[in-house]
């Protein structure tokens, strides 16, 4: 029995991508289908970075086609990823060299935003994406320490800064510009927002798929500047399970809603404590807080991370968990969260432009 390209396409309509939960055809992933005789070749182009699952997807597609098409000969599938840039309103200035901006935020301080941000950035990079980290916490920059970067950024043209690099990430932080670990930035709001604007726009980001912005806690100057001045693709809210943190996380979420930034989802940090002596797992800050918040606001629960001494030690030493122990269980959780974020961001990039009203000025 013979078949053609259309048969291959319709066979793939019944195969669901386990990451996007959509079939490959409506996800627009199927490219270059060619049938010659009984042999089939095609490409699967994923909209999210997923190096670790390329083989899995290739095997899945090949097996599916062998089952669906009668008399099929050789099936060869190539899988690759291409992150699409986020669509924006006309007139909004894009950040040069950046396809998507993901803000990592929380209402409350000390819930592990920076640790989560750096590990998620590293996890996205491990999946094959080009990733940068912008430390938007002007008063308390942590990324230089967590990424193990010291020294000052260089400027080639005297106007812009080259991002610092380590662990395959590009990074920029006010922390690179100041001397010593104990120099405070004693600045009022306008200075801080100006500094953020410069770090963002005057860094020569090199062809990034994702720029992860590590925001300071709160709902003030920095957050508002980011929301108004740059096209943020989506925001990830980090919280811990106890009520007092959730209260502020809710405000953080509402702030993004107010300024029209979509919420990618919620990450619950310090979900459980695992005893380093006996391995006993306990919900010391309460259970199910993050999930409940997700249910209340109808956003995705991206995942929960344990309160594990290694996460803290590794981040403090400049080798965050995802690079220090890339195959460990904690790194796996970060990678899973990162993949969920990437899939969601790819979705958002496609249907974003429709959200803006059209405005026409008529001079009468």
């Amino acid at each position: 029995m013979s078949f053609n390209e259309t048969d291959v396409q319709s066979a793939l309509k019944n195969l669901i991508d386990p990451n996007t939960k959509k079939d490959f055809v409506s996800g627009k992933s199927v490219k270059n289908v060619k049938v010659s005789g009984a042999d089939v070749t095609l490409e699967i182009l994923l909209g999210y970075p997923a190096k670790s699952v390329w083989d899995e997807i290739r095997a899945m597609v090949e097996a599916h086609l062998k089952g669906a098409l009668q008399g099929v000969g050789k099936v060869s599938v190539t899988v690759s990823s291409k992150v699409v840039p986020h669509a924006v309103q006309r007139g909004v200035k894009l950040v040069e060299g950046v396809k998507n901006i993901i803000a990592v935020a929380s209402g409350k301080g000390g819930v592990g935003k920076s640790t989560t941000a750096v590990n998620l950035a590293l996890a996205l990079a491990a999946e094959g994406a080009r990733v940068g980290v912008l430390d938007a916490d002007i008063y308390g920059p942590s990324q230089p320490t967590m990424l193990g970067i010291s020294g000052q950024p260089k400027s080639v043209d005297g106007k812009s800064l080259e991002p610092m690099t380590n662990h395959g990430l590009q990074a920029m932080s006010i922390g690179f510009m100041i001397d010593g670990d104990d120099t405070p930035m004693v600045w009022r709001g306008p200075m801080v927002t100006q500094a953020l604007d410069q770090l963002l726009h005057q860094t020569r980001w090199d062809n990034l798929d994702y720029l992860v912005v590590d925001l300071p806690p709160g709902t003030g100057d920095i957050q508002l500047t980011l929301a108004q001045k740059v096209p943020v693709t989506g925001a990830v809210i980090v919280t811990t399970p106890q009520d007092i943190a959730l209260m502020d996380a809710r405000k953080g979420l509402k702030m993004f809603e107010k300024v029209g930034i979509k919420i990618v989802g919620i990450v619950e940090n310090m979900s459980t404590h695992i005893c380093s002596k006996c391995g006993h797992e306990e919900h010391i800050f309460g259970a199910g807080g993050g999930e409940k918040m997700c249910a209340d606001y109808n956003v995705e629960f991206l995942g929960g991370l344990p309160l594990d001494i290694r996460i803290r030690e590794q981040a403090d030493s400049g080798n965050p968990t995802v690079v220090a122990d890339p195959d460990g269980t904690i790194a796996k959780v970060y990678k899973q969260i990162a993949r969920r974020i990437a899939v969601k961001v790819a979705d958002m990039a496609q249907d974003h432009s429709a959200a803006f009203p059209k405005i026409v000025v008529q001079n009468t």
Partner: protein
Amino acid sequence: MLEIVFSDDVSYQLPYEYLRVYSPSADVSGHGPGQEVLQVGKKNVGITSLIPVGSYAVQINFDDGHDTGLYTWGYLYKLGKNQAALWQDYLDRLAAAGASREPRP
């Protein structure tokens, strides 16, 4: 006249004067209900530019120098939907204050 079409295909035509006197800026709306400042003599006001603000609003720069109002999509929708009532309310308030839409000579 500013024409705005929303994603649900509803469209409104909003005159510049109407937008100007209902600016959401604190100069016009105050910091809460009851603090509104009546705008007068804006009949011939024009728009010099529109600046997008993030993904949630537009900043309208008027030719009388007023530029501090950030019109969110929701606010513009409200202005469109209740245009007749809000405009009449403005005219009533003008009359009550003995003021005019005409610019002062």
